[in-house]
């Protein structure tokens, strides 16, 4: 089929699992895939071409919700849970005694197509342990995706995980079959990685990340010249960082994220609260279970970086390296910058509106829209989705504050703490609607879920607004 495929395909699949039913394989290979938090199907809009099955919707679609409240959008499975590596945090590490199995490319196709036509999923999220070596594994993955795209003419969403150490030629070929690629950074710093993932190196992670970035950029130019060129990773790349397995601070983590956004053009950085699945002296005890609040604060901050024009150094510093447990990062920032408030709703520009607690991207956009035809009053704000009980300390409408409130840190802090923050988890759980959505909800609670737009759409709208205002 192609030059790289030198392995004999008949013998690819390990024989020892031949007794397992498809149900058992699915159980094993989805169970070990679940710690990867990215389940979004967003970032690319593509109509079907009428010859096969599937399309994609740029905002993504969540088809179901699991008992942990997380969205189910893709068939998220490993190709195999065999692995030659021994990452200490991973259930599939070589030294663990677990049932091992692999799918065949045909089985992957059958499950994807049959789930898709019943509207269970938006597509496939294929990750894998490493069997024999990285190239060998990636070829199997390539074969499954090739079959899906060309034999079944599947045009739904495919997210594929890059195996560190894979030949760049193969990475490129995968990139033309996938909508999104990701390679997990795993731990925020190189030291952390060395300690917990002794077989992985920062370099083998960043090199393919850079390659994919360049591939996407070159492809954009090609597409501009020849509009028939095929698309390379059109939904962009993402990565995942495990939070709480190593001692990095929030400040270090958001700096890493900011770097990845700026230098590698990543679409998303996902944060995954560490779940302890192995006993290992290198791993922390985590008495309170996975650090969900911390993970939540990181997502809020991430959102501020990507859509609200904040920089990491505005949110935290060496001296204050971790987020406030009681207040979300935006309220926390505003309280430290009271000299900038109150802000006049009828005059402030878009970027300033975005910095007001209780005002999200959508409500800021609506304010700008509405005030072109008439003055905006407090009662209008509510209808536009502004969370007044949070915003009221920071704004005026036509020169007046809503109540006679003081602009004073202790006073506002006390009042804000009385407004119970709606956290997406209670005692022991977190939830995600496609994550891009859930963050917006946190900032402007009254947003109806369906109103939420995809990442690209959001950027488009923002650009439009910035031009207008």
């Amino acid at each position, binding site marked *: 089929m192609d030059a790289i495929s030198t392995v004999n395909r008949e013998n690819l699949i390990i024989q020892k699992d031949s007794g397992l039913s498809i149900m058992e394989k699915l159980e094993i290979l989805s169970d070990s895939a679940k710690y990867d938090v990215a389940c979004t199907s967003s970032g690319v809009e593509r109509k079907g071409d009428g010859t096969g099955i599937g399309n994609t919707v740029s905002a993504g679609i969540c088809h179901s919700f699991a008992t942990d*409240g997380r969205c189910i959008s893709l068939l998220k499975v490993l190709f195999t849970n065999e692995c030659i590596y021994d990452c200490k945090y991973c259930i599939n590490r070589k030294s663990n005694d677990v049932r091992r199995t692999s799918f065949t490319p045909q089985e992957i196709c059958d499950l994807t197509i049959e789930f898709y*036509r019943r509207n269970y999923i938006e597509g496939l999220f294929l990750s894998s342990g490493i069997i024999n070596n990285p190239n060998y594994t990636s070829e199997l993955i390539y074969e499954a995706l090739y079959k899906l795209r060309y034999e079944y003419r599947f045009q739904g969403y495919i997210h594929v995980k890059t195996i560190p150490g894979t030949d760049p030629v193969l990475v490129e070929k995968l990139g033309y079959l996938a909508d999104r690629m990701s390679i997990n950074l795993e731990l925020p710093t190189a030291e952390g990685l060395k300690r917990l993932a002794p077989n992985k190196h920062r370099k083998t992670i960043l090199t393919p990340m850079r390659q994919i970035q360049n591939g996407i950029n070159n492809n954009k130019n090609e597409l501009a010249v020849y509009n028939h060129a095929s698309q390379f990773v059109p939904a962009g790349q993402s990565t995942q960082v495990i939070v709480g397995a190593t001692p990095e601070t929030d400040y270090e983590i958001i700096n890493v994220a900011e770097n990845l956004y700026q230098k590698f053009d990543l679409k998303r950085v996902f944060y995954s609260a560490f779940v302890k699945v192995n006993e290992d002296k290198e791993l922390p005890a985590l008495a309170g279970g996975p650090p969900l609040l911390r993970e939540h604060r990181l997502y809020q901050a991430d959102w501020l970086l990507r859509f609200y024009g904040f920089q990491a150094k505005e949110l935290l510093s060496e001296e204050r390296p971790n987020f406030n447990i009681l207040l979300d990062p935006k309220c926390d920032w505003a309280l430290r910058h009271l000299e900038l408030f109150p802000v006049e709703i009828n005059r402030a520009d878009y970027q300033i509106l975005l910095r007001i607690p209780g005002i999200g991207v959508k409500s800021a956009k609506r304010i700008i829209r509405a005030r072109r035809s008439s003055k905006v009053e407090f009662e209008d704000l509510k209808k536009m989705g502004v969370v007044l009980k949070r915003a009221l300390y920071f704004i005026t409408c036509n020169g007046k504050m809503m109540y006679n409130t003081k602009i004073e840190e202790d006073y506002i802090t006390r009042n804000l703490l009385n407004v119970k923050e709606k956290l997406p988890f209670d005692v022991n759980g977190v*939830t995600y609607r496609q994550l891009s959505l859930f963050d917006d909800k946190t900032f402007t609670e009254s947003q109806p879920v*369906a109103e939420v737009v995809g990442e690209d759409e959001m950027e488009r709208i923002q650009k439009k607004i910035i031009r207008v205002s």
Partner: protein
Amino acid sequence: MGTILLCEDSLEGIFTGIYKAYERKENHTECKLQAGEIENYQLFAEYVRVQREEELAKKVSRTICRDLGMEAYLCICQAIATEDKNKADAVYHTVVEGINCFKQSTISKNSSCSTFQFYGIMGNLTNPYVQKVFELSRSAGNEIMRMKEILRFRELENGILFAKIGPKCNVLSFIAPHFADRLPLENFVIYDHLRHLFVVHPAKQDWFIVTGEHFDKEITERFSEKEKEYEALFTHFCHTIAIRERKNLNLQRQMLPLRFRDYMVEF
């Protein structure tokens, strides 16, 4: 004394009503449009029944698309898909406002309707009618999106994919294009059991809508052999994919209200 135009509760009915309202050349503030039957009879109002006319409805829809733009048109269509009692009047006055703004904006660039030039009529959220249409279209939009998420096809013995839904508003014509685009080679049927409406999509052909309460229910309950297997596989997948340490049933319920679960094979 005002006039109340009574029209059929459908896109064509309401658009015909708007046409007739314009034809009467009355002051629009004196005129109301009501879809469906009279709810509270108003003593001092003149009631006029409007028969739906395809041609007139088409004219109105063309005008809306041209002068108010496609975004507004979509909002209006979605608002009409809801079951709200005052939707027709909100749509009517939104169209009036939109056409006024359109006219003004062509005369003077600095009119009070400057929002219109940037965002169209739907940006005018301080107008109560526009706001109402906006809210209705938002709630219909939610339901449309929900149906794209939770609709489940089941393969019948004869190979047809069949889905039953019970949405809050009439979403069929909004979701049909989505599924027709994804599943061009499938024969599928989507059944709205609350309104007795069907979308029928024969493989490689256009979809269409059929009404009727009487159909062979039994056929739709005879599934193919593979059907049960895939339902079991997906149900199992939904269980194994959850992280036990993060279990949170409240949140699951918040994200996926119980009313949808009857239609989902995995629950």
